[in-house]
């Protein structure tokens, strides 16, 4: 498997063996490798702020001995003066060895990858893709459950607009798993995804009642209901408190259920669950560094 020079843009670009290889390298990256990317420079081009993703990439690069330059707010760059994304990338590729781009404009990362002769990693492009989140979710599941095959995974919250859910479901569909989509009808998983998953032989189940399916789940993946995705603020008000998990959940689950969340949360999971052995969302976030170390090393051809 050779990832050198490859771009990391969308869940659609990966085969199952790609995913397995990334997970394997991520595991190796849990070890300290402070010289691996010595002399390499990462450019972080953040056209919208995202502290979590940026810090995680920067930490990954520093831990591998590389250096970082970039911006995290387009207001301070010449983009504000009307420079095209294409030209910004053509400039950045001359200063760095690998680029991470984050933008609210969908498809930015794909275009950046076409402009750049060096590898580009998508750090999130609007409502479209966020492949490093998907990979760290997958890594977390495999790490905590020691397998993916055969798991029953519940997705809860905004499944209609939630890109993390869409990407993770597509990635998981390489394995024989069962999926439960738990959401009010108006926020349910889009039908075309359900259809695609079923065509791949995935057993899918839809419900609005978390307790109906929670007793058989191995993983419960909770997402925030995001205000900015709603065209109508009144609609948001209606659903923002649709689910608030608290300790009453514990009476309706298997002993080894693990609860995941891409964070930040806004009340979907009560803090009283944080100290239970079910909560793994902070560990999940921390796994982002190992996964991003793996991706940086892979696309620079330095994983060995």
């Amino acid at each position, binding site marked *: 498997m050779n990832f050198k020079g490859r771009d990391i843009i969308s869940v659609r670009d990966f085969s199952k063996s790609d995913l397995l290889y990334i997970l394997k390298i991520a595991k190796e990256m849990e070890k300290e490798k402070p010289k691996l990317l010595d002399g390499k420079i990462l450019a972080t081009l953040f056209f919208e702020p995202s502290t979590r993703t940026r810090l995680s990439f920067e930490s990954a690069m520093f831990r591998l001995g590389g250096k970082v330059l970039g911006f995290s707010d387009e207001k301070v760059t010449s983009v504000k003066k009307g420079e095209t*994304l294409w030209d910004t990338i053509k400039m950045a590729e001359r200063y760095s060895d690998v680029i991470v781009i984050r933008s609210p*404009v*969908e*498809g930015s990362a*794909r*275009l950046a990858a076409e402009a750049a002769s060096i590898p580009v990693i998508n750090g999130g*492009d609007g409502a479209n*893709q966020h492949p490093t989140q998907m990979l760290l979710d997958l890594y977390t599941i495999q790490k905590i459950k020691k397998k993916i095959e055969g798991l029953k995974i519940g997705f809860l919250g905004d499944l209609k607009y939630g890109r993390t859910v869409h990407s993770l479901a597509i990635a998981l569909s390489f394995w024989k798993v069962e999926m439960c989509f738990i959401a009010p009808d108006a926020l349910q998983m889009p039908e*075309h995804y359900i259809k695609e998953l079923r065509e791949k032989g995935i057993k899918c189940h839809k419900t609005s009642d978390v307790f109906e399916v929670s007793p058989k789940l191995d993983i419960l993946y909770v997402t925030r209901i995001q205000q900015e995705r709603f065209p109508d603020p009144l609609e948001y008000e209606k659903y923002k408190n649709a689910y608030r998990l608290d300790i009453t959940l514990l009476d309706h689950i298997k002993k080894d259920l693990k609860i995941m969340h891409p964070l930040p949360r806004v009340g979907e999971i009560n803090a009283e669950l944080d100290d239970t052995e079910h909560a793994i969302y902070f560990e999940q976030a921390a796994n982002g560094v190992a996964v991003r170390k793996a991706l940086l090393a892979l696309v620079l051809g330095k994983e060995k």
Partner: protein
Amino acid sequence: MKERRIPAIKDGTVIDHIPSRDTFRIIRILNPQEFKYPINLALNLDSKKIGSKGVIKIDSRFLTQSEVNKIAILAPNATVSIIKNYKAIEKIQVKLPEELVGVLNCTNPVCITSKEIVISKFKVLREEPLEVKCHYCERVYGKDEVEIKRK
């Protein structure tokens, strides 16, 4: 009996087996206001192949490959016949390519193709019912949602 609902043409193009409901959209793709030759069309004709079909006959005009590809988006079963001296000298079965480059507009207002000058690229996921995906924002469009470039 031969098609007699529309007068025969001496030289030109006949587009047959168009779904009735998409006939006007196909006329529009051909920019009829830009040429002076007559166009005849018939709608709601019985068709064993597609149920209800439309036929377009265009006098003295021949289609470009790009126009034929655009027709395939809306009418994957269409046939395009080239008429010379009242005879069909060539009959082309339209074919949808796997990738449509510079043919469709992505109507997603937050797609990079609406912010920057980029040649649009769509992947054909399915021919019937049509499903195409923007190469950039990955949004999927059905037949009634696609916006075909006029030029």
